[in-house]
């Protein structure tokens, strides 16, 4: 895939830059919003879960942060790339380039926003006494697999959106449900034993387990988990391209 898109790296770069430059255009704080927004969310959830509901989790703010940020990278990528094909008719009908670049560049742009948040992730972790350990070296690989997983789903969803515009509304609900069914704001040990296997089928549970393990415990999950991560990533990419190839041929005329 990368080799295929390689000749178009400048286009990808330009599209990412365009997305960046236009996202915060005419807003006063600009890029700072991609720092403030998650910070405020973390504060709100800490108030609700830690102070009011008194959930028994050690260092709730960092616990929540390590789950919420990867989640928000996932959900915002899917939502923003959803219309990347269906609303680029003006490009698709006028110029030829590999169409998957459109969702791909949106995922990349979200990735950059995600990476920016590490600017406060590490300081906050250190304030709470979590210092980087050698396992952190595997973080880039986790982020890479996470990104590929997101790209696959984005490709699938943006392909479907070309034909079914109400995917957006369904997805809204699904993402809310998915958020609460993933142990982001609560720990795994609160889940009843008999539902645990369902949680393990949820790829986002696995993703978040990886991030927490690396950032909080400074260790890595076993080989079994890596295998599962690879399978989820592969299935997602396969599904993405399956749907994409189905619509690719008629894309220009359907828009």
């Amino acid at each position, binding site marked *: 895939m990368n080799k295929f898109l390689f000749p178009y790296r400048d286009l990808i770069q330009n599209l990412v830059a365009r997305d960046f430059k236009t996202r915060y255009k005419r807003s006063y704080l600009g890029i700072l919003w991609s720092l403030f927004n998650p910070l405020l969310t973390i504060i709100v959830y800490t108030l609700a879960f830690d102070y009011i509901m008194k959930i028994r989790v050690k260092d709730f703010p960092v616990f929540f942060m390590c789950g919420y940020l990867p989640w928000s990278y996932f959900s915002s990528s899917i939502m923003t790339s959803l219309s990347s094909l269906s609303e680029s008719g003006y490009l698709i009908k006028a110029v030829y380039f590999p169409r998957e670049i459109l969702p791909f560049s949106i995922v990349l742009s979200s990735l950059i926003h995600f990476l920016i948040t590490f600017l406060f992730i590490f300081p906050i972790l250190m304030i709470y006494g979590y210092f980087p350990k050698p396992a952190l070296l595997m973080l880039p690989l986790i982020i890479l697999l996470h990104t590929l997983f997101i790209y696959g789903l984005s490709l699938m969803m943006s392909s479907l959106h070309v034909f079914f515009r109400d995917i957006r509304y369904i997805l809204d609900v699904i993402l809310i449900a998915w958020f609460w069914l993933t142990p982001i704001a609560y720990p795994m040990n609160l889940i009843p034993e008999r539902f645990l296997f369902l949680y393990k089928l949820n790829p986002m549970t696995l993703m978040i387990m990886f991030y927490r393990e690396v950032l909080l415990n400074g260790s890595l999950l076993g080989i079994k988990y890596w295998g599962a991560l690879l399978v989820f990533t592969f299935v997602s990419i396969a599904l993405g391209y399956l749907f994409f190839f189905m619509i690719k041929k008629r894309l*220009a005329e359907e828009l």
Partner: protein
Amino acid sequence: MVKLQNVSKRFRIYEDRSRDLKETAINWLRGKKRSFRDLWALKNINLIVNQGETVGFIGENGSGKSTLLKLICGIYSPDEGRVKVEGKVSALLELGVGFHPDLTGEENIYLNGSMLGFNRKAMRERFYEIVEFSELGDFIYSPIRTYSSGMVMRLGFSIAMCVDPDILLIDEVLAVGDEAFQKKCFQRLGEFKAKGKTILIVSHALELIERFCNRVVLLHHGELLTDGQPSEGIEAYHKIIQNRFLGPEEKPLLPEVKNEEEIGEKIEEENFDSGNFKIMEVYDSDYFVSQLFFETFGHTPPKQPLNYVAFWKSSKEPNQLEIIGFIHVEPYGEVGLVGGICIGKNWQGKGLEKMLLRYVEKVSEDKKALFLYTDHPKLPEECGYEKTPYPYLWVHWLKKIDPEEKNDLMELANSIGPF
């Protein structure tokens, strides 16, 4: 080089388009298929454009010109056939497309360039050339949304011209800017041509096409009608337009007639007034008969030219001509003739085939002729006919032929037919 092999492109026109899941699900549960009809925007196009050619595409609106260019640059993929393109393509299909309004002209140059497959470095080298050509000056550093439409078009054109492609596709966008800018564009296109680049232009500006192109392709209802000298194509196009604006009573306009001969014994039928069946031999009938044929059969004849047209001239309204059918006759060696007959639907089953056959028999007096009969399985019994590998295609021998020669003739016949 651009090569199109038997290319057809179909569009689906949805009658009741279900854009949401609910409707799709309901339709699916009811076992109702999505209703759409197919529109063949291009039908069986064969075209080879060699490097260095400047080809103009003309035709009425909806004749498939733009679709053709979009197939060549890869925006559409063909439903049938193959499209092969060698060399870097730059397409100017819609101006200002791919420009982002909030980005500056400069940023848009890089963005647009990368869509055409040129990297930042390559675009940087061309940057000043593009700015100079577009005459935008300092505006290049302002967001596109502050541009006038003329400025946007100038920028788009400048980018496409300056990226130095091997093949340039232009769709009806040459009317940009003032006269001076247009002149500059043409000068640039001329330089392009001189460098041996390939240019494909779609335009309604026939003057421009005639002056600039060395080859013209005429498309009509998605079919390639003529392909050759600009003057030929443009003349044919004028005829089509002319024909369209004629009132029904004047239609169809008849081509130059070599000789017109009455062949008909009068047939008095309920459905028809008394009148004459006539057949005419036509000169250089390429475009014209194709046009008539198209109106009668809804597709162009694969075998061109057709050299005879049979028509019906009503005695009440002598201006009203109805096409009965078409005949194609081709000499075979010194003494033979082969050909085919196509009869319009309204006239099938009225024994006219026999009449047309008799006519050809008369023309081919001392020649051994073999005939392909197409369209209609009900050939008059006494004629005698044989089957060919094609469905709905029978061969009729006008003269007795010895079996050895028969094989040769059959082969030739098969290569001509079916219509």
